[in-house]
């Protein structure tokens, strides 16, 4: 079933992952026995309508949640064997988050927002943070507060922040959902070049055009994977 078997190294592997929520109206099976693997350096797009289990899957992939049955292995670790605290630690090491709403700390400058990620990870390094900011083309914006930046610029700061601790996995949640066409272009380009540099990207999107950027698209429905296809080499992904 797994198409990715030919790939050299598997970084994420879900086996019969099941997640259920207990509510007033009984148990809801948000993910129903899903199996999926992602190789290092792959760009995976996750699609699906509301209620398809998309966000549950993202929570699992982002080490934010654990399965009720089956297993999730990320970077060689079985997530279900980790304690809450270990999971928090592991997440900080393994996953870089790119949010639809950017989620920058409003009272810290662009540079400081990046340094904050270093601060919680290990120790701050201004030079390195500055380099990350320059990589996303915002070297001249280092001292600006998020409120002084455009949406696209904020998203680029967010991407720089996600990268700063060199996590093996980037999790992008509707990264262009809040952006206009021009900024969408810039951010997409940035993600592409990151992917080409070997970063693994998991991207949630509802935009089919955006999904075409990925190597592979997984579509969810009612907690199951209903479609999975490799994206043919389109002209702009060359």
């Amino acid at each position: 079933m797994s198409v990715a078997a030919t790939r050299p190294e598997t970084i994420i592997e879900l086996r019969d992952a099941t997640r259920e929520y207990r509510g007033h109206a009984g148990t809801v099976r948000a993910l129903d026995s899903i199996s999926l693997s992602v190789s290092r350096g792959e760009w995976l797009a996750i699609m699906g309508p509301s209620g398809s289990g998309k966000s549950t899957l993202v929570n699992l992939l982002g080490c934010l949640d654990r399965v009720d049955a089956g297993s999730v292995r990320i970077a060689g670790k079985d997530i279900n064997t980790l304690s809450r605290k270990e999971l928090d630690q592991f997440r900080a090491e393994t996953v870089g988050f790119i949010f639809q709403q950017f989620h920058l700390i409003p009272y810290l400058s662009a540079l400081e927002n990046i340094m904050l990620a270093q601060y919680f990870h290990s120790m701050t390094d201004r030079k390195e943070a500055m380099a990350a900011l320059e990589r996303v083309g915002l070297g001249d914006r280092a001292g600006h507060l998020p409120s002084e930046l455009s949406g696209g610029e904020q998203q680029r700061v967010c991407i720089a922040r996600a990268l700063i601790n060199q996590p093996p996995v980037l999790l992008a949640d509707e990264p262009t959902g809040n952006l206009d066409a021009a900024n969408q272009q810039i951010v997409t380009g940035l993600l592409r070049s990151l992917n080409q540099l070997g970063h693994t990207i998991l991207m949630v999107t509802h935009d089919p055009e955006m999904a075409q950027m990925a190597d592979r698209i997984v579509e969810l429905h009612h907690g199951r994977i209903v479609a999975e296809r490799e994206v043919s080499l389109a002209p702009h992904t060359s």
Partner: protein
Amino acid sequence: MRHERMGQGLSLPMLLRRSLLHRRSRTLAELVSLTVSAAVATALLTLYASLDLKLHHQFRAFGANIVITSQNAGQPLPPDALAIARQAAGPDSRVAPFAYAIAQMQDGSSIVVAGTDLTGARAMDSWWQVSHWPENNQATPVQVLTGVRAAKALGAERFFLTYNGKSVPLQTAGTVRTGDAEDSRIYLPLDAFESWTGVTPTTLEVQAAGSTRQIQAVLESLRLALPNSHVQAVHQLVEAEANVISRTRSLMLSSLLLILLTVAICVLATLTASVLERRRDFAVMKALGATQRHVGLLFLLEAFVLAMVGLLCGYALGCGIAYLIGEWNFHTAIFPVWRIAPQVALLNLLVAVLAAAVPLRILRHLEPAMLLRGE
């Protein structure tokens, strides 16, 4: 400002400072509630600590609380008793001597005349309603203070009284009304009284100042100094005073607890709002690898800094409030009581700790997952 935002590394103090300055209105609200908390605790504890003294001062309105007589009723006290009593009672106490004799009016009926230190009596017996105090001690005829009933019986302002066959002219300088035995008497300056009747004081009235314990101490030293006299506390007064003061203290204490509880809710609410408003920021920090400890520490430090500033402002404010309440209610200032400072700090810490529990719980349950919009 922008320059500063680039020029320094990231540290906890810097994060704190930025976070506090960024949300000025929220910071102010927290500061206000923490200040109020400290101010209320300070004011009430200061009042509580000064209550004894202030109320005892009010009880001076009841007059003498210790009475000294000779062992045998009606016998004069030793001549030096007044001086000894003044010495033993200390400078804060008031002492007034009283001597009594029964004289005859012109129609032959009896009347009680009393010799006293009129200045002393005036200071001690504030409830005496006197039309005019005799002022000239040397005047002839002798200026006297006449009880209202005695004045009615005498009929005239100038009159003669006879004691032991010795008749003297007297003049009423003013009348006194108390509703009690004083209304039937005539009060003379002690010197004039002694030279007329030859009777020396039989009673010393002492108004000892201070708390029940201090009054007891004055009582003891008077008993030691005047071993052959009868030194008695005015039970009526001492017991009423102790009773009223202890009840007022209990009331103050219950009020203090009740109000502090209310204030704790206020602090709890502002701290909770402060965390709720920044749920997202804290969740981002968690997503970036901040542990529960990091986030909790950041919040607690922030609360601590505000609590400290609030404590300082509140202490000053509370002292001011206590001072004003003293002026309004007791007509004497209530000054800061330094020894309550640790208690205020402790109470405030308690309030802050209680109030921080809910926000900390919220922080613990924050999940970075809330930042994702998967659906």
